[in-house]
């Protein structure tokens, strides 16, 4: 791990300002993803701004009947909150399907949004990767790409976003509140936070330099059924091969792209009277396999159709 300087942020706006002033600064909250990458020297921050003790650990009701979840609320605290469990079960299920209990106890919801891909070539500093070194090339394109993207990928990057939580948030149409380096606050739709790779896979979000996530805001819960379905190689403590969040008439897919994939084509097809299988077909029509991950397209179609039918998981 490279040497760094460290400070505890006095407040959120101060943290954002400091981060913008220090090239190579990173926010540190739970640290479960950042410290892992720092040990591998894939992340090499020169300055750490610890935001873990900022007063952003509350979950509060909003005026319109939703919830505001502070950015440093832990994954465990969010999933255990009675209001989340009863009104937003898809979010509780998504959180509980991710990582291990020890990691969820430490990792924050803000950090969950900002975590980086688990692409093995991103993690292997001996292999070219356009995320780590723009222009170096993508090793996954012709490599072991069983877990990689089937939607929205580019020649430059075929990685996926590893978050389960963000998939549920996409289906719930959550907003993400931030503070920028000038002290201004803004709110982005969850679907606007992450970027598809295009030619610049190293630019992963639409946040500005220094911009700090302060809260996730859930609108009032949608009418209808909520469910998170995750398919993976082992039953616990594993990333998804495919996941689907269902929240009333809205849906989002995980492990298919570099961002949570809102299934708006399937939603529109359903609204127009399409069957579950037809809706899934509409969403996956543009999906492209890389060879080793072709099965994901069939898997996605089947899981989405089964979820829409309400077929029990086991």
């Amino acid at each position, binding site marked *: *791990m490279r*040497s*760094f*300087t*460290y*400070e*505890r942020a006095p407040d959120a706006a101060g943290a954002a300002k400091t981060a913008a002033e220090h090239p190579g600064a990173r926010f*540190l909250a739970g*640290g*479960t993803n950042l*410290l*892992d990458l720092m*040990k591998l020297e894939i992340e090499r921050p020169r*300055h*750490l701004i*610890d935001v*873990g003790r900022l007063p952003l650990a509350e979950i509060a009701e909003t005026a319109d009947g939703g919830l505001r979840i502070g950015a440093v609320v832990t994954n*465990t605290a969010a*999933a*255990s909150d*009675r209001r989340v*469990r*009863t009104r937003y*079960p898809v979010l*509780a*299920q998504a959180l*509980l*399907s991710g*990582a*291990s*209990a*020890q*990691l969820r*106890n*430490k990792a924050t919801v803000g950090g969950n949004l900002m975590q980086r891909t688990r692409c093995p070539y991103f993690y292997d500093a001996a292999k070219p990767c356009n995320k780590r070194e723009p222009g170096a090339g993508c090793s996954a394109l012709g490599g072991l790409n069983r877990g990689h993207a089937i939607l929205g990928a580019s020649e430059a990057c075929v990685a996926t976003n590893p978050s389960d939580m963000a998939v549920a948030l996409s289906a719930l149409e959550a907003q993400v509140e931030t503070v920028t380096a000038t002290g201004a606050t803004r709110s982005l739709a969850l679907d606007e936070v992450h970027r598809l790779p295009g030619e610049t896979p190293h630019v992963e979000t639409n946040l500005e330099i220094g911009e700090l996530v302060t809260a996730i805001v859930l609108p009032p819960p949608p009418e209808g059924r909520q469910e998170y379905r995750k398919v993976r190689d082992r*039953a*616990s*403590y594993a990333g998804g091969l495919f996941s689907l969040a269902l929240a009333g008439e809205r849906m989002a897919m995980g492990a298919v792209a570099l961002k949570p994939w809102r299934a708006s084509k399937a939603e529109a097809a359903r609204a127009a009277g399409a069957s579950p299988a037809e809706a899934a077909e509409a969403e996956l029509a543009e999906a492209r396999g890389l060879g080793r991950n072709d099965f994901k397209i069939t898997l996605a179609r089947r899981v989405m159709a089964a979820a829409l039918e309400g077929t029990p998981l086991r």
Partner: protein
Amino acid sequence: MLDTAARDVTRGTFEITVNDEERRVNVDLRTTLLDLLREHLGLMGTKKGCDHGQCGACTVLVDGVRINSCLSLAVMHEGQAVTTIEGVGLPGNLHPLQTAFLDRDAFQCGYCTPGQICSALGMLEEVRRGEPSQATEDLAAAIVSLTDEEIRERMSGNICRCSAYPQILEAIRDIAGAAA
């Protein structure tokens, strides 16, 4: 209190409570909580397995909550209370869960055992607080019933390469039954 104004500083002096004893430490800020415990405080009970949060051998309790001590900087825990396996129980004065691990033969090599025990103690508190898991049938229920499936799911962050899982499950079930 850590001096946060001096930005050219890569070492820090701070206080941290370990097994009920208040310690004042001065370390390179890169020092993980795990390395602080083992290399600076001489508490070798907590083990380093993967050092990447994947195996659970380094699990300790911080303010009663189980975490991977390898994925945390020591300085992040200034002012907090850490409990390691040495603080759970020592020879001659074992914790009931340690006794249950012996009775059930819940290990072979023993390398993962301190992490397993600290993790299980944290897990039982999570259940007492009514925190759900992926195995919880009714997410809205206030009380979690600690079935075998719940124990397996909740302990999935602790790997045992000797594969003593059935005996670990029995040991945890023994003490969970006794506590209920």
